[in-house]
């Protein structure tokens, strides 16, 4: 992967600073790679009802935490020792923030894996077919936003930022579907509740991807992304649109 720290007119006069910034950026990308793999593993575990794989994914979450800690330590060291300004400062603060978001995405992937183990103890629910679409989209969004970071590509970051709406829409419809399955047959409730949490976790992954997209915008241009977009956490379904639970 061709990775560069955003190119300046020249490299730093103190070249070791360039090397340090590049190493920081590389660690963020490496963390992104691990998080992508975790998300793919969680998706496979859920879709194939593979509890062994799910357990592996859950156990590997610690790798992401270690990488995040590494980024945090490195960033703080650079802030203290180099007193960075302007784009250097933004690169470092960006790495710090993005690492935090990636760590959360990793947690959600591990959560999905853990819950899938519980879901596997119940008979398959039809609705599970809708989850792969959400997972697929979440994986695409995470991949795209990491590519945008690697390339320092603002247009791509903004495009990802808008795609989160699709994920929110999928979540909303899946939520409704799950509620109706639960109303149809109370024996579905345990599995469907877990699926509901899984769907929520995937939806949150999209929110963290949008955070990363906003950081890419900021670290490249030095100003925040100010457009407004409906956010996942604002998700409150219109009560009238939901099936009546008494039916």
């Amino acid at each position: 992967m061709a990775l560069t720290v955003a190119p300046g007119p020249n490299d730093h006069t103190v070249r070791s600073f360039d090397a340090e910034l590049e190493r920081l950026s590389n660690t963020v990308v490496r963390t992104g790679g691990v998080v992508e793999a975790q998300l793919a593993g969680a998706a496979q575990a859920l879709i194939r009802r593979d509890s062994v794989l799910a357990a592996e994914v859950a156990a590997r979450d610690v790798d992401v935490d270690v990488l995040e800690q590494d980024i945090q330590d490195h960033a703080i060291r650079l802030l203290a020792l180099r007193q960075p300004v302007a784009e250097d400062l933004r690169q470092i603060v960006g790495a710090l923030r993005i690492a935090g978001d990636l760590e959360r995405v990793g947690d959600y992937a591990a959560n999905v894996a853990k819950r899938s183990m519980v879901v596997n103890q119940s008979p398959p629910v039809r609705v599970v077919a809708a989850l792969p679409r959400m997972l697929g989209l979440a994986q695409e969004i995470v991949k795209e936003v990491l590519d945008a970071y690697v390339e320092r590509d603002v247009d791509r970051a903004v495009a990802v930022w808008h795609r989160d709406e699709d994920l929110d829409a999928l979540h909303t419809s899946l939520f409704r579907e799950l509620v109706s399955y639960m109303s149809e047959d109370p024996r579905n409730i345990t599995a469907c509740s877990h699926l509901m949490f899984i769907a929520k976790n995937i939806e949150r992954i999209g929110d963290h991807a949008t955070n990363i997209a906003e950081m890419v915008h900021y670290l490249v241009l030095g100003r925040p992304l100010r457009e407004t977009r409906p956010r996942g956490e604002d998700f409150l379904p219109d009560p009238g649109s939901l099936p009546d639970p008494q039916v």
Partner: protein
Amino acid sequence: MNVQTKDSEQDHGYPDTTVGKPILESDIKVAARDVSVFYGEKQAIKSVSLDVAANEVTAFIGPSGCGKSTFLRALNRMNDTIDICRVTGDIRLDGEDVYDRKVDVVQLRARVGMVFQKPNPFPKSIFENVAYGPRIHGLVSHKSELEEIVHSSLERAGLLNEVKDRLDTPGTGLSGGQQQRLCIARAIAVSPEVILMDEPCSALDPIATAKIEELIDELRANYTIVIVTHSMQQAARVSQRTAFFHLGNLVEMGDTETIFTNPEHRLTQGYITGRFG
């Protein structure tokens, strides 16, 4: 010799840019328009226009030889002392032309005081160092008045407590940081409106530097301060506005926060992040 015109801003490829919040017309203390400074044939400042806001600290930054000190010295006509130096354009202090024939340069330099890179107290007592200005400018009629000015100036310069018991000892016997604060007291004693500082901390240790920086921040309430500094961190710490000079041009000026987080121009970015080629 070609005198640069405003059109020539296009020539150097980077039109002067102002970032951040603009200075209100009523807040302008010093206004420079189309100012060029020549040393003989060599043009050291190329058609610079900028405003210095009252009761603010304005920092001039840029690599050595960029003209920031030359421009600073043009503001109180310190360059007049250099024979081959010629200044064109317009510099106004509260709307009055600084280079007008009728201007009394000595009076001007009392209104626009200066503090230099190396502390340069007179080889006289601490008291006399501060008393010298008010005395030659005829600002006092009684000895008690003079004592009052010396005390209040030393107080404002944050030095009184350290020297009040030895005002009759030589100023040169003080530490470097104290000497620089003595020079600031000397500048304040003649009630200036503007204080120009040319790298006032470059010969001082970090503690003495911190004291001067604290003092600069306090003085801002009563004076307008322009500081030339090689320390980017210092500019970031003490100033409200920063101007970046390069090869005699003003590349960019704006509020300090914007200059140090998101400068407009690649040259500024390159300089402040240490990428200058």
